[in-house]
């Protein structure tokens, strides 16, 4: 790649140049770009045009695209911190309950009591915080890491094996070397003809309508 295309000369190509879905509801319109730079400019324009239900699809995380799209920082770190604290609490309570209390706990199974067992060994105190530290630490990390991945997938709505984007043949290159921008039909500002002309003005390689 010797030269990335410079600012597009804005000129809407005639509508018949695009593949279109003849009838029925569409999921959205997808524009294809061949460099992260071109996508970035397009994303800024779409953001400034006031669309809300739209997305970019890239083969790798493009640095700066979050800002170009106006994505707000995720609250994931705060939740992960809370889960880490839960892990620490769990570690403390688990060790205190099992090794240094005689606390009775109903397990929920018929006839089974779960109770702590005060364990005296080598004259050490039953409740000694320093010896709990490794397990508390490990459980903190375990809970935080599981929640980081779990919540990331949950917020992303994954796993979701079907998506309208996958109907497009071109879209397979979103994980290879092409950069896509999709404006969804549910966006309040979405009017198909206008959106098509607008995307055309961003100088994409192609525009495609996605079936719902």
């Amino acid at each position, binding site marked *: 790649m010797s030269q990335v295309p410079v600012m597009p000369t804005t000129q809407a190509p005639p509508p018949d140049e695009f593949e279109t879905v003849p009838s029925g509801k569409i999921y959205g319109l997808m524009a294809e770009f061949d460099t992260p730079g071109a996508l970035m400019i397009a994303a800024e324009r779409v953001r400034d045009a006031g669309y809300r239900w739209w997305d970019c699809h890239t083969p790798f995380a493009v640095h700066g695209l979050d800002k170009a799209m106006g994505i707000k920082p995720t609250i994931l770190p705060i939740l992960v911190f809370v889960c880490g604290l839960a892990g620490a609490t769990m570690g403390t309570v688990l060790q205190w309950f099992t090794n240094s209390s005689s606390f009775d706990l109903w397990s929920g199974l018929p006839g089974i009591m779960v109770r702590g067992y005060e364990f005296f060994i080598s004259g050490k105190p039953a409740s000694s915080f320093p010896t709990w530290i490794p397990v508390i630490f490990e459980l903190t990390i375990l809970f935080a890491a599981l929640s980081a991945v779990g919540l990331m997938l949950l917020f*992303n709505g994954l796993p979701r094996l079907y998506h309208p984007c996958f109907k497009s043949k071109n879209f397979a290159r979103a994980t290879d070397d092409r950069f896509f921008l999709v404006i969804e039909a549910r966006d309040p500002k979405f009017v198909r003809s206008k959106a098509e002309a607008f995307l055309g003005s961003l100088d994409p390689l192609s525009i495609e309508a996605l079936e719902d």
Partner: protein
Amino acid sequence: MSTIIIDNTFEDPFRRAPLVLGHDNFTSVTEEICYVNEAPRPPKAWYVAFFISSALATFLVVLIGYLFVAGVGVWGNQNPVMWGFPIVNFVFWVGIGHAGTLISAILFLFRQRWRTGINRFAEAMTIFAVICAGMFPGIHIGRVWLAYWLFPIPNQMEMWPQFRSPLLWDVFAVGTYFTVSLLFWYTGMIPDLATLRDRANTKLKAMSYGILALGWRGSNRHWHRYERAYLLLAALATPLVLSVHSVVSFDFAVSQVPGWHTTIFPPYFVTGAIFSGFAMVMTLAIPARELWGLKNFITMRHLENMTKVILLTGTIVGFAYSMEFFIAWYSGSLYEKFAFINRAFGQYSWAYWIMVSCNVLTPQIFWFKKARSSIPIMFVASLLVNVGMWFERFVIVITSLSQDYLPSSWGYFTPTWVDIWMLIGSFGLFMTLFLLFIRFLPVIAIAEVKGVMPQAHVGHGHDHHLEDEQ
């Protein structure tokens, strides 16, 4: 600007060394890396290696069956050396497993972008090494059907594990380490699995990669949370990796045995783990890059960086060996002093000197640029380091146990054939898993590699020309 650079070992502060060679666009990067998985047949060497390693792994399974039927007497573990090979192998494999997370997490936090070429490898290696490691204490407990006693599960005796024991800390540390490493590995692989899914040419491939990729579609809203989660994982895994081998070292250091009861153990074990792990990454990466033509991604610069890490950690390990001796003398403790003199000149001195020559002397050749740029030298050195690090654990476990306080209970540990074949078999298991990984999963972090190419960077503002990037 579009010139394709083939040497990146130069040291020029004004020029950033490229991390990907021979490619100037994303398409060819995808093609070249995916070819490892998509080639109709792997290289012949793969079949040979797979045949040997899976045979060894099968033999390991047979031996474990024999152990379960006959009992732990099939091992050389005897009074006073009750820990023997299983624990030596456990510590060895856990140590190997440390480089993966070090490369993925610590180098990630330090923005060492050269990690992208080798991190997937190293992470996979971590997972498989921890599997091998976890197996040994699992079968060492003797009555394997009671392995659930390791976990705080309510049981018929109304008893709980003893949380003041470092052995239990180990269960939690290694368990957490395995889980977090697996998450790290898998999370990093999701975008690349999607790449393989989208390139799949058979229904079976499309479905299996499709399910594994969880429907990843490269959405930037997803990337945003994904990157954040990845950063968090790195930040969590960094203290974790340091804690795991520290906890393993507590198994020794918290006891009263001379030669074990030292405060230097946690940092000394962690450094040794990184040292051996990097050596293992090198042992695996060198043949892999030759066989699958990955020299553009695992470049000479990557290998050279690894030799530098090996030199540094090897030297620290050497320093730790000498500090152990110094403290043994300085402490004035008779038993401590005896334990160390006995290590170097006693009945296991042969093991001690193998350890010193492999771990301390071998890495010193990497002071020379010539050694850092010669593949055969690197490969041999990495093998020697692996051998040396196994002997380090042997020396620590066996010498201290065989001759502790009471001369009347001294003994000499001799491994049985089962011990030796289980060790060899664990290498078979490790290599089997690794060869399957190379064949079926993305061996290099494709998305990350693309991200470190100059073409991936959009210049400041709208001026996305690339002059300032190269």
